[in-house]
């Protein structure tokens, strides 16, 4: 049961930033409307972020990773259930790696 100072500081920094997004966003956006470009950019941030996150491992990855990605997207489209889609993706990579020997 250890709590290291550097880890605590990183967690606190994340907490402050996250609370600023939740509460500060309400306090600020209620008073001022951001310029349209900033507004639109905020809406595009999550999708672009996740694309930037998944691209390097998929491009560097072998074909089992691509099979897994297809499985995730297919199952998510079919079930709209995050948990089921994650499990399907991991299972597909597992199976493909086993096949690849």
């Amino acid at each position: 049961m250890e709590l290291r100072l550097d880890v605590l500081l990183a967690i606190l920094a994340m907490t402050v930033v996250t609370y600023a997004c939740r509460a500060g966003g309400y306090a600020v956006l209620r008073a001022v409307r951001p310029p349209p470009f900033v507004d639109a950019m905020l809406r595009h941030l999550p999708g672009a972020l996740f694309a930037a996150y998944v691209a390097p491992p998929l491009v560097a990855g072998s074909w089992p990773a691509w099979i897994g990605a297809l499985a995730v997207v297919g199952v998510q489209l079919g079930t709209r259930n995050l948990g089921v889609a994650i499990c399907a993706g991991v299972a597909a990579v597992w199976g493909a790696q086993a096949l690849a020997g």
Partner: protein
Amino acid sequence: MEGPAPHAPDRRVIFTRAGILRGARDTLPLWLGMLPFGLVVGIIADAKGLTFLETVLMSAIVYAGAAQLLALELWTDPAPIGAAALAALVVNIRMAPMGAALAGWLDRLRGWRLWGTLATMVDHSFAMAVREQRAGGRDAGYLLGVGLGLWVAWLLCTAIGHLAGSAVRVPPGHPLYFASVAAFLSIMVGLWRGPRVDLGPWVVAGLLAVAAHRAGLPAPVPLLGGTLAGAALGAWIELRDQARRPPPAAGSAASAPQGPAPGDRG
């Protein structure tokens, strides 16, 4: 269901214990769906060397699954304070418009009821509160209840994940680590608004991240560079389309800010 009086004289927003409990109860069907994502975050936290206490503390006070997962992917020893904060900012900035969209309730709250409710706000509680508001609900306690219910589930799932991860050593390269890519991919499916809007920005974000990665730029730079370029392109396309196409009816462009795809996230 008793129909509300058509001329309800009192449309005041209330905040009751009953509303909080009802919100918390409405989260129960979501608990099972959160389990794999929570497990993944717990397992990765363990793999990155976080102790049980550190993992549970992070889940308890950051309480933002995608941001936690991303920060953990960037984790180093000693802990990367700046990179973790940056990851939280980029992932969670999407929550900034949510509170404003719920102003109909939040503007009537004061003190801990307002600032405490905001602390628990996540994608699901936002989406469920919007649905509740549109159905005529006026008990703002509902938003807090959903947030608290999901918070308990999140703590439990990540705690179980950490315990499982430390009980069974997962070797590097194990298919289980694909779970974090899988989590982000399935979130992306929920965010997808069609090729016109999202294809270009996402491809640019991905390609730039790959290029920066190959160029050997340090950890958060490829991610941030790709993200900002993709989002800027998305904003540019959107504003260009708006300028070309005159609004069909006055005022339709001034709708309330929307959260990302309500309904699909943990």
